């Protein structure tokens, strides 16, 4: 079977979602798209159930913190079409200190722990998640440690300051 091209993926998505999609980037051939949190479930469901795309395998869910952007958090979904041998990356940018996004557990049971991990480290609320608790950190932790403002170690420690190393 001919490999599904990124253009045809976008064309299919745009015919369903009225031309909303433009590739964010395509580095290393991995198509990256951006969508909003209102659409994300529809987009994921379309990608999963469309007979030709068949992105039925959820590889990963994670998040990235960009403190310098107006929308600080990006939730990143990696999907894989095992039939076509193509991957796709979907990004959803969220704003506010307590961002929220619908859960993908309605589509994949495997999203459960991935979303719990993302919540644990970034504090992103997955609305509708059956069991949104911390998973790797202790339950009474008060911060979301992967946010950029949270320091790795004691900020008063002087021996590891960047300026000692000319950085």
């Amino acid at each position: 079977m001919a490999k599904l091209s990124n253009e045809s993926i976008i064309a299919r998505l745009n015919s369903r979602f009225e031309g909303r999609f433009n590739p964010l980037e395509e580095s290393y051939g991995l198509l990256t798209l951006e969508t909003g949190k209102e659409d994300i479930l529809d987009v994921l469901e379309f990608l999963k159930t469309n007979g030709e795309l068949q992105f039925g395998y959820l590889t990963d869910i994670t998040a990235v913190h960009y403190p310098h952007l107006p929308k600080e958090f990006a939730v990143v979904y990696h999907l894989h079409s095992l039939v076509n041998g193509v991957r796709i990356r979907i990004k959803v940018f969220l704003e506010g200190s307590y961002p929220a996004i619908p859960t993908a557990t309605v589509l994949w049971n495997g999203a459960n722990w991935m979303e719990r991990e993302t919540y644990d480290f970034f504090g992103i609320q997955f609305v509708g998640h059956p069991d949104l608790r911390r998973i790797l950190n202790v339950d009474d932790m008060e911060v979301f440690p992967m946010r950029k403002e949270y320091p790795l170690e004691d900020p008063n420690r002087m021996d590891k300051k960047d300026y000692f190393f000319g950085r």
Partner: protein
Amino acid sequence: MSESISKITSNKPVFVDNDPQEELFTLNLGPTHPATHGVFQNVLQVDGERIVSGVSTIGYIHRAFEKISEHRAYYQITTLTDRLNYCSSPINNMGWHMTVEKLLDIELPKRVQYMRVIIMELSRIADHIICNGILGVDTGTFAGFIPMMVKREFIYEIFEEICGARLTTNIGRIGGFERDFNETAFSKIKQFVKEFPAVLKEFEALLERNRIFIERTAGVAAVDPETALNYSWSGPILRATGVDYDVRANEPYSSYEEFDFEVPVGTNGDVYDRFLVRNSEMWQSLRMIEQALAKIEKEPKGIFHADVPDFYLPPKEQVYNNMEALIYHFKIVMGEIDAPKKELYHCVEGANGELGFYLISDGGRSPYRLHFRRPSFINYQMYAPMSSGMLLSDAIINMSSLNVIAGELDA
């Protein structure tokens, strides 16, 4: 969700309970329990011998690798990847090297790629030896385990010959290997390829048609492919359900496309099939090592890294006597390399499944964000739901055949 779980449990025998307990008993399986083979906990509600429900608690050895990675230079992250799946560290090391090489656009010489294949397949064998050997122990026989562990010990000797370490190997560098395989290493690899088949055959003969083993494992924790895919399973346990997804075959890296190998699949997705799949994978790994050895013979000798002075440390004699080498050495050690601003996902077939590295570089000395897609973490989440309705003894061997490694679970 409930539908798919009832599907999982419907495969199990239904017991007529003549003696229902007045109340359920809470059993803590873990955090340190001999059967978990690692530090993680399952709080189980049991009715006699039967598990009613369970809650998995993980994170006991969480070490914040993703946070630490944001503060370290690229080459310093290799030591973190060692400690993910510590039963097959070299695969993690190589996966990370390849991710950075993809970012820096480094093309490796063929000989180095074949050397990597040898290392990765050896560690896959070492990992499967642990899993299948322990599965035998958990079902009641030590006999197969011991000779297999002797061979794993031999694999560790090979690693020691190549990089000086055994468990947390830190093997290879970005751009190749730290040194060439010496003659002893090659002869030990050849000796392993020659001697291992007999041991593996004996191990298979001991268990594969063994009635006790089959009765303990066949039909236990059978998972259908739809459920496995829905839970994002990967690796041998996914292939045991009949899905032929193997990163080495689907998206070849490190010249796997040149190798002649098969992707073994099972039919039922039960513990017995996982055992068979892992055993067949060891045979396939052996085949690949043989092919890689033959391919290395044809390549020019003495090449063990790519010619990338910006990223690969110069030899020590040159550092002391040559200005450029000193500058490169300093820049590399301080992590001041020029990485492009890019975002990438690279995955390798780890011993437990798809091991992915999602790396965002902002051009700085450390990753802006690095996320490990850890197969054990994702595979393990089905454990508690699939255990409900199972006998406690079945749940133990199910855990053993999932091959959950605590380091990879918690990162």
